[in-house]
């Protein structure tokens, strides 16, 4: 029972991480209609900037701020230089241009930071573990990730539901011409929204630093899972991204946690371990296929 609870918590934590990346991706798609493969690269930029600042200053706060600022800055520069010209083009052009940007950003980061993975310490305040489930110490840092993720989700909800920017964002998602008619500088709005998406990716990157490996290519590793999240949730919907992230996080974690033992019970031997590994790898893709078969536009389609 304690193990199940712990694994549920693990799934939640993975889900929160995925949500931060997926939220930016889905926002940018919902509002500008742009599919941005380079979202993973922004995550990488955030992680590297955060790691470099942490190493230089030793301050977790500076590292956090610097990481998200760097990601937002790179994101906005990307929007101004390239993506802005792609809003009216098809998805194909967007896929290709952002594919090119991945190549560029990865190699540029290699040239800047080298090929060695970077070390990032857990901020001292968040070290150690607490027993929130009796008998199971759980790392404070992971709890912090969950907390930040839920705060961000709540903040995004408030931003979108309660502010003028959010109103424009919602209006922009359903009717671009209308927003233009309101006399809003839509180019500025787009840049800002893109910056927001990049910022969230950067935040995920900084937070991933002490847990995952900070190295070139870390973005693509997680990008495809993020896509799965966005597709399951319904492209363009932040609510969907949250639901999709939680679902993927939980399904993935629980499969990895319990499938091997189940299979061992059923067929036994090392074959069971290998088969379980394979099945767990494909689990989230199967989940996506099933969701799309039942609801081709995802769980919470943005434009009904």
């Amino acid at each position, binding site marked *: 029972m304690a193990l199940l609870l712990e694994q549920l918590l693990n799934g939640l934590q993975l889900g929160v991480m995925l949500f931060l990346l997926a939220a930016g991706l889905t926002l940018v798609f919902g509002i500008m209609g742009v599919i941005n493969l380079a979202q993973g690269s922004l995550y990488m930029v955030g992680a590297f900037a955060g790691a470099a600042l942490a190493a230089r200053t030793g301050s977790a706060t500076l590292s956090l701020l610097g990481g998200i600022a760097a990601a937002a800055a790179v994101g906005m520069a990307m929007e101004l230089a390239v993506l802005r010209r792609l809003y009216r083009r098809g998805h194909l052009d967007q896929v290709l241009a952002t594919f090119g940007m991945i190549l560029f950003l990865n190699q540029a980061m290699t040239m800047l930071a080298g090929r060695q993975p970077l070390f990032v310490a857990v901020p001292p305040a968040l070290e150690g573990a607490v027993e929130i489930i009796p008998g*199971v110490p759980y790392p404070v840092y992971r709890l912090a990730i969950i907390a930040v993720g839920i705060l961000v989700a709540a903040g995004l909800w408030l931003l979108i539901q309660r502010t003028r920017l959010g109103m424009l964002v919602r209006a922009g998602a359903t009717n671009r011409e209308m927003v233009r008619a309101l006399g809003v500088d839509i180019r500025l709005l787009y840049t800002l929204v893109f910056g927001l998406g990049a910022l969230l990716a950067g935040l995920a990157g900084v937070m991933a630093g*002490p847990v*995952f490996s900070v190295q070139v290519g870390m973005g693509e590793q997680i990008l495809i899972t993020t896509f799965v999240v966005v597709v399951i949730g319904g492209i363009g919907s932040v609510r969907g991204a949250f639901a999709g992230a939680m679902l993927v996080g939980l399904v993935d974690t629980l499969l990895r946690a319990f499938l091997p033992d189940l299979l061992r019970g059923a067929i036994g031997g090392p074959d069971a*371990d290998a088969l379980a590994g*394979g099945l767990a790898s494909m689990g989230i893709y199967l989940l996506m296929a099933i969701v799309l078969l039942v609801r081709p536009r995802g769980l919470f389609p943005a434009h009904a």
Partner: protein
Amino acid sequence: MLHRRGLLAAGALGGAALVASPLARPALAQAAPVRIGMITSLSGPGAYLGQDIRDGFLLAIEQGGGKLGGTPVALLVEDDGLKPGQGKQIAERFVGNEKIRLLTGIVFSNVLGAVLPDVLDAGAVYASPNASPSNFAGRDCHRNYWSIAWQNDSLHESAGQAAQNLGHKRMFLLAANYQAGRDAIAGFRRMYKGEVLGEIYTRLDQTDYAAELARIRAARPDAVYQFHPGGLGIAFLRQYAQAGLAELVPQVVAAPSMDSTTLAAVGEAALGMTVGSHWNSDFDVPASRAFVAAFRAKYDRLPTYYAQQGFDTALAIGGAFRNGGADLADTEAFRKGMLKADFASTRGRFRFGPNQHPVQDWFMLKVERGADGKPALVTKAKILSDHGDAYAAQCRL
């Protein structure tokens, strides 16, 4: 009429580009040094491995004043991007167009598998500074194929032996779900005779190991063996320590899971780990001490064992050159020279087995706090002597 002209122009352009591109490389053959082609991974995940191999190799050439074993050499380096197809393409150019007869540098087994058949069929020599999969050590061994590092399995056998020597009775095994991961667990189990509580294969694109860590905690093993190369391993080790497992369950791993670069990235989280390896930067061997000092002076970082393997590969080639193998048109003469293993290996004792793979000693290292307070890999004991590999018997040369 117009479109026919257009088409022919396209054809001509294509043809010209095809023929011209491989020739565009400036000719390097003026001083007639022996040219060595290095195909290695300098981009993509694990790029630092290729970088270290290259840097170690270059250091040996520099120390020889542009020569290896007294013969002037020129090193051509190209990035395979960890793509077998690209590696093969480079090999074709090196062997076909540049007429290079000696190649080296490949980090990963999958690239080696794609490149090696072509190189050997063309009658060229390949000296491996890293990847040495089992088929080329056994059934498919070849007179022109050399491994200067180790056979892949030996790494994990040394970890298994270390776990055995440490007296662990109940262990939990994990590896990334790919061929090398499966080989790793097989190699480990060849030497480890205790009980295996569980085997987990993790996803290659996995970043979060919380689910696996919870299972380990629930199983309460004496120790954990895991094989996660590069970034996967860094994430695993950090999360292992953050989950509080580092104090509870010690780890016994093979060198690829814990080299000095990984250690720098993981930091304190690695304290207490046991590592099986053929070399460590603290070796009390004169050649090793000199190498580590020179490498640190030149590149301002501690050499990993990849750098050491690159360095040793260059030295071994120098040894072959010195012993009458400098003319690579005669690969048999090169082979005779190489077999003598006439070089001061950084790992001390070194010779080639019948399958032209190393026979060497293996050691147990431990991650401890060094003099400067930072975690460091410290050599503890020799665990295997004159250890070859399990496949040599299948090799008929």
